[in-house]
């Protein structure tokens, strides 16, 4: 028996070792193909009369997607084949760090197809086989690099020709120089337990069977493990493993006056075996909670008139508020410096530009600071979703004090500098600039318990002769509203599409001066622009950790990027001034036929 065990263990060890060696040899083959083609291209790639590349970057992403969706206990979509897909991104820069082909928008090439690459030879998001060998990858890199170089070289010439008609005011460099780095992730990405998660999703979705007033509902899980192979001509090389898992349960009902009322439970982590992943019991309880909340809110009274006055966000709601309306303003936006074509006219609020020129200025009350902690793995026992070791450019991120006692110190930035911030702080993730784990820190004397926050609000209301104040207990993040199978789709497009700084919440309560709380619907949390954050007068004394996704945005018209997992750590926030705006738009009539669930 003992011998058998030893043999078994030896075999397991042997196969594990063999598997590691195989993976390692495959990794080396991929990196060798990249190295050889990058060296050849840097040396030989040149069109007559045009400049050579000064920088080439290869990124190969091999990913898998697991996706299960269920409604009322029945599977709608189950994509668990575990098949790998691979995509290749090649970036070529021509010119030099000071002035290169990037940061130039030319309507003739960007809107009406490239004048250079009219063969549709793709170099961005190029689909390649996941079963890669040296010769195959060299061939793909060769064609993609050729297409990328031709476009870059022509763009630089166009940019140089165009610039002769401009008086240049911003001579910030095109690209910052950074020292080369090398690293390889060795940890294994989690396996996805199909049986367990199918059961979880089905059981959660089944909760809604008992709520016929909820007209549309689902539960779903998505897991995206991926391996990224990266190399650039400066010598940076890495192999990075990353993943995110996202569970959601959501439901939508329609009030008597036609308003769509919804709520969602969401859990985000980096991997499905995360120690904080909720148990089936918890998931079902949380799903019941949102179903009950929808039921409560469907019967809630409607706001009579627009409310202006103090508003208290619970710590969970405050985290979504910060993620959605504040944090993105801390990201440096590198707009095309030379624009020969259209200029997007957007408000600074909607395009998160408010803090671009505010470094050194006050953006929060002087008792609040904010730190971004990309290297911190957990907080209060909860794994943080935004943690990473190296960014897309291979740069180790710094832990930053981004707002110090209310004053903005810097902005989050990658290798494309702006006038006020000229060095990367390692924030490039999934092709966009993003924060990681953003933590709000509040001076002790401004922290107080939830009970005292409510008392404080009542005091404010009385002083203004308001009958009640407003408490927001939960805000639904926009990434749960937009996208397939999400809330907007579930209303068949009959609700207002989320845009701007308006927040969606169906957990709003009136707090009367006598201490009563009553749910209310029919109001929109509008106007919570970043400048309003200076109106925070007190905060809670308990920090909440929200793991969520930050939807990328870009000042450039064309960018390929996707949402990044991030964490927001914040307490409840009491705003001295805020608005709950009466919604006066018309709603779709309620259903003529009753829900079949009522007749079952």
């Amino acid at each position: 028996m003992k011998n058998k065990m030893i043999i078994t263990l030896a075999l397991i060890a042997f196969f594990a070792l063999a598997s590691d060696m195989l993976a390692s040899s495959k990794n080396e083959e991929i990196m060798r193909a990249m190295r050889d083609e990058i060296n050849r291209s840097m040396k030989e790639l040149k069109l007559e009369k045009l400049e050579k590349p000064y920088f080439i970057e290869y990124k190969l992403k091999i990913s898998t997607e697991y996706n299960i969706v269920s409604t009322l206990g029945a599977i709608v979509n189950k994509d668990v084949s575990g098949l790998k897909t691979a995509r290749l991104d090649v970036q070529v820069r021509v010119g030099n760090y000071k002035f290169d082909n990037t940061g130039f928008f030319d309507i003739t090439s960007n809107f009406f197809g490239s004048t250079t690459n009219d063969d549709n030879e793709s170099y961005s998001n190029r689909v390649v086989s996941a079963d890669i060998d040296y010769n195959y990858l060299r061939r793909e890199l060769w064609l993609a690099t050729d297409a990328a170089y031709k476009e870059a070289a022509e763009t630089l010439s166009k940019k140089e020709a165009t610039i002769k008609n401009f008086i240049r005011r911003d001579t910030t460099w095109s690209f910052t120089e950074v020292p080369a780095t090398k690293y390889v992730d060795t940890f294994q990405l989690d396996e996805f337990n199909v049986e367990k998660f199918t059961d979880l999703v089905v059981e959660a979705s089944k909760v809604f069977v008992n709520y016929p007033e909820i007209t549309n509902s689902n539960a779903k899980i998505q897991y995206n493990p991926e391996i990224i192979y990266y190399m650039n001509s400066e010598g940076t090389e890495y192999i990075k493993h990353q993943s995110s898992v996202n569970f959601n349960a959501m439901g939508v009902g329609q009030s008597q006056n036609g308003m769509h009322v919804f709520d969602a439970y969401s859990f985000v982590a980096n991997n499905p075996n995360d120690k904080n992943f909720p148990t089936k019991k918890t998931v079902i309880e949380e799903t019941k909670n949102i179903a009950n909340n929808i039921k409560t809110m469907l019967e809630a009274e409607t706001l009579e008139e627009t409310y202006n006055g103090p508003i208290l966000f619970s710590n969970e709601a405050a985290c979504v508020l910060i993620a959605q309306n504040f944090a993105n303003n801390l990201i440096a936006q590198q707009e095309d410096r030379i624009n020969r074509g259209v200029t997007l006219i957007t408000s600074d609020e909607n395009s998160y530009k408010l803090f671009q020129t505010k470094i050194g200025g006050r953006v929060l009350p002087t008792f609040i600071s904010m730190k971004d902690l990309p290297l911190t793995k957990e907080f209060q026992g909860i794994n943080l979703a935004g943690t990473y070791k190296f960014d897309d450019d291979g740069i180790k991120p710094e832990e930053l004090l981004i707002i110090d006692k209310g004053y903005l110190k810097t902005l989050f930035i990658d290798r494309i500098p702006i006038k006020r911030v000229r060095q990367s702080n390692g924030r490039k993730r999934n092709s966009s600039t993003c924060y990681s784990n953003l933590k709000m820190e509040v001076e002790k004397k401004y922290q107080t318990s939830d009970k005292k926050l409510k008392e404080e609000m009542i005091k404010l209301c009385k002083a203004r002769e308001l009958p009640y104040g407003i408490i927001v207990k939960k805000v639904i993040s926009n990434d749960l509203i937009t996208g397939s199978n999400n809330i907007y789709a579930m209303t068949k497009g009959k609700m207002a599409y989320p845009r701007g700084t308006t927040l969606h919440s169906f957990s709003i309560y009136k707090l009367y001066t006598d201490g009563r709380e009553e749910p209310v619907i029919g109001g929109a949390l509008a106007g919570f622009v970043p400048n309003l954050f200076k109106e925070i007068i007190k905060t809670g004394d308990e920090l909440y950790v929200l793991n969520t996704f930050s939807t990328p945005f870009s000042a450039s018209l064309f960018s390929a990027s996707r949402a990044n997992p991030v964490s927001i750590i914040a307490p409840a926030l009491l705003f001295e001034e805020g608005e709950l705006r009466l919604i006066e738009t018309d709603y779709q009539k309620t259903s003529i036929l009753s829900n079949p669930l009522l007749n079952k």
Partner: protein
Amino acid sequence: MKLIKILVLSLVFTLSISLAYGQSEVLKSAVKTELDRSMREFSKEEKAPYFLSYYVTETMENRLTASFGKLINVRRYSGLTTDQHTRIVDIDLRVGSYDFDNTHVIRGAYDPFGRLSVSSSLPIEDDENAIRVALWNNTEKAYRDAAEKFEKAVSNKAVKVAEEDSSADFSKELPNKYREDFKKRYYSEVEARGDVNAFVIDTAKWNAIICRLSDKFNKYPWIFDGSVTLNSTLKNKYYVNSEGSEISFPETYVRIMISAKTKAEDGMSLPLYKDYFAFSCDGLPSEELMAQDIDKMIDLLDRLRTAETATTFTGPAILSGEASGVFFHEIFGHRVEGHREKDPAFSHTFKEFVGKKILPEFMSVTFDPSMKEINGREISGYYKYDDEGQKGERVETVKDGIFQTYIMSRSPIKGFPNSNGHGRRSSGHSAVARQSNLIVSSTNQKTISELRNMLIEEAKKQGKEYGLFFDRVTGGFTLIDRSMPNSFNVTPLVVYKIYVDGRPDELVRGVDLIGTPLTTFEKITATGDDLGIFNGMCGAESGWVPVSASSPSLFVSTIEVQKKSKSQTKLPILPAPVNPINP
């Protein structure tokens, strides 16, 4: 409205595994319950529906693509879910009456989404409650959309001049009942995984085959795309309507598509395609045969990249059988799709020609969805019932050169009040009249050698140095809008010059075949004694549908070609990184 129709090999890269379920009684029960309930309850409304149908399509698709010897797996998204296994319902709810309903053409309105149906994914599991809730939600939407559109149509009719064609909006048809269950077909017991009705392919075997086939392109660094795609699909279709029709049947097909592309020194991209279609893997050619076809394709690509470019030309031409099939599909087929004769935006090319000559008297054109094969080859325009629950009928549109009738959906036109089973669509679209298996036949058949002699004689007569032979085409488009020239453009892939002085035939590149239909038909002088067959997917306002086009070679006394647009991008600057012959 401009109609652009493209007939191409469907080359979307996806992969999924097909596992099938039989027609579900739970699904049927849920659908019928909601249909009855909806008709009953909505009848209490001021604007009650007079017709409601549900069309549930359960699709299990398996797509494998290999490029240069390597398997590429990319999921395709269609609608709300991945197409690995989907169940989609399309709802047709009509308010008003058969004579005038919400689908009535609103003249002067630009409505690019007007042809979209209410469509939604359903649970793929047989849970009656979940299915009924999904149907309920979507029927509500369909009703509201229909009621709103009906009111708009009523006011539009009131403010506009009398219509050219005042036919009813929906034809009255007898209800159909049909049921056919899928018969299991196992290609591998392991793959079947015990599913009773599994339509499966041996993915391991086919992965290896398509990898080996696409690997053949690896030896040639001047080939920039070289892929082989296998697509096997099982669709379980279930249709039920308020008139009493209830139809359920399976559809299967397997398709292999080979695609390769090279590039000439002047930048021109030169693609070639080869397509094999069958209703099951048994009907596919052997690997050896496909490998030989790839060798021929490579040889042709090699010759094409150094071939001379052709220039603008008018003169005589021969179109091969396959090219003629596509040619007819484009310039004739889309003009006999009945519903277009009612829309004042379209040109109504043949409206005044019913009972009159439009083709030489030796030619006939038939559409026959009931044919599964022709000359021993399986053809992809086969179906039993169309997407409006009507039996697919054989329709002889042209007999001995005389135009007889249109292919019809349930949208009647003047003189043609009923459907002949050609109402077709893909999920998410409303059905309109679409082609099935187009078959061109002729009583004036010549051998290919005789056609060639006729070409040379005609070229001499016209004082031309050469005539053209169109060997292969890949599709094209036709314009049938009144505000545009009623022209067509067919995209040739392989064209030869046939010289009158006996010089060898010369492969040329870079031209499109253009013209207008009625003039071109007049110039058809003879046909070959062969029959070329083209299987493909046809895209138009009701989505993508499988079709075929079969024709003998055609001799046309005068055609016109124009230079095609071409890429301006140079060949790669550096040589291929690894010498493929001696890696």
